[in-house]
């Protein structure tokens, strides 16, 4: 199966402050607060003036309320009820942003992917973006046959919600679509499916 060893699969690294940047824009979701607070602590000790130019957009959950950022002494923190609301604000912020901005994203991969998709439209390059994956590994999957995107896919094989084909979830990732490619798994032997397992937890 063409599942592993694919170069387009995103690679993430623990977030670190990039104090060469002049402005710092942080996006987080749920447990993503942890890595962002770590970067903020790093700035507090190494480059406190960076914090004045730091802005956080955050989707809190019950364990990680937005107060954690305010407790860290950060003024510019905005909370959102869900990812689409955050992304809408993110886009508006990017329109106003200047060169010298660094983007930090922490949260589940699907959240990172959607943020990256917008960052790409603004020509932010790898050396301007840092991302740390935390939370669920559930994937956004794009059906290459009918172009439907499915959210929160946890299994290696998934049925397309639109065309009802059985799809193998590949590691082949599209930054433009912010999704993994789902390819019909039983095209040559209809109905013969490999075992379906929960693998993206």
């Amino acid at each position, binding site marked *: 199966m063409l599942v592993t060893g694919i170069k387009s699969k995103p690679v993430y690294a623990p977030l670190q402050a990039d104090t060469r940047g*002049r402005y710092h824009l942080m996006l987080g979701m749920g447990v993503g607060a942890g890595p962002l607070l770590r970067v903020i602590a790093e700035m507090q000790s190494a480059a406190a003036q960076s914090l004045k130019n730091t802005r956080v957009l955050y989707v809190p959950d019950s364990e990680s309320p937005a107060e954690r950022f305010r407790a860290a002494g950060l003024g510019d923190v905005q909370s959102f009820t869900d990812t689409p609301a955050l992304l809408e604000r993110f886009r508006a912020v990017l329109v106003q942003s200047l*060169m*010298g901005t660094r983007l930090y994203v922490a949260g589940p991969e699907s959240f990172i992917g959607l943020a990256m998709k917008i960052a790409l439209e603004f020509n*932010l390059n790898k*050396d301007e973006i840092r991302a740390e994956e935390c939370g669920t590994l559930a994937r956004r999957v794009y059906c290459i046959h009918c172009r439907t995107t499915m959210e929160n896919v946890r299994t290696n094989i998934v049925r397309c919600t639109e065309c009802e084909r059985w799809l193998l979830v590949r590691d082949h990732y599209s930054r433009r679509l912010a999704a993994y490619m789902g390819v019909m798994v039983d095209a040559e032997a209809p109905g013969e499916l490999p075992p379906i397992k929960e693998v993206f937890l």
Partner: protein
Amino acid sequence: MNDAQTIAVEVIGIEQVTPLIKHFKLAPVGGGSLPVFSGGSHIIVVMHSADRVHRNPYSLLGSPQQLDSYEIGVRRMEESRGGSHFMHDTVKVGSRLEIAHPVNLFNLDKIARKHVLIAGGIGITPFIAQLEDLHGGPVPYELHYSVRSPEHAAFLDRLRGREGDRVHMYYDSEGQTIAVESLLANQPLGTHVYVCGPAGMIKHVIDTAQSCGWPDSHIHWEQFSAPPVGDAFEVFLARSKISVHVPPDRSLLESIEAAGVEVPYLCRGGVCGFCQTRVLELDGELQHNDHFLSEADKSKGKSIMPCVSRARCKSLVLDL
């Protein structure tokens, strides 16, 4: 690239555009079309003077849409090793030259959201062709062009006629300088800056961009170094099994070529890294003059760019 792949051209027009810069038009011998190129490309012009061969890089400044001739601008260098003087003093309309195929080491970023072009003096040449590529497109751009005085503003009428107030002029003679800091501190996300001009200007723009928080992937520059003059030295080419003398006023690459050994090259100005050569043995020190090797690689002494770098040594053995 080597001379077997050159194109024979004839000089079909020469114009003195400033006290120091001549504008040449080169058409293929026998007519026809020249190879396609994109804005920012350069060619190597091969000049056979009485006693030696010069191979100098020059940016193409004509329209990438016009391929019946190429245009280059040549500044007369005070401390010329002969190439620019040959172009200025010996080459006439009707003279024949050889050129290498165009190579682009100074590309416009294709997905940029804005382009800021900064030129100093003869550094305007690659931008003239790039502006042809940008003109009429959806992406905003602006040119900041600095020269010593109005009479030195090469190709300005051509630029003004086409680009109007996108061209911002700065004259040293009137005390005007490009305010790089305020220019780069206020650019929208996705802007790319490009600089071509004197070494000091390039360094100033790079340093300022970095201090404004710009990442390296948005900073572009091109500077062809002329090979500096240095002490004479001997080099042994291990695979060819010959010894080559490098005189003070010839580059290592030129000396190796004069001995009949071909080294692949593209820019001959220390930029592209194509002529990178392994150093097998060295008793002495390398004098790195290129912009390609990292400082760490330079200090290791295992590689040299023979187009612009030299050695001060008792012996040097190269993997050629």
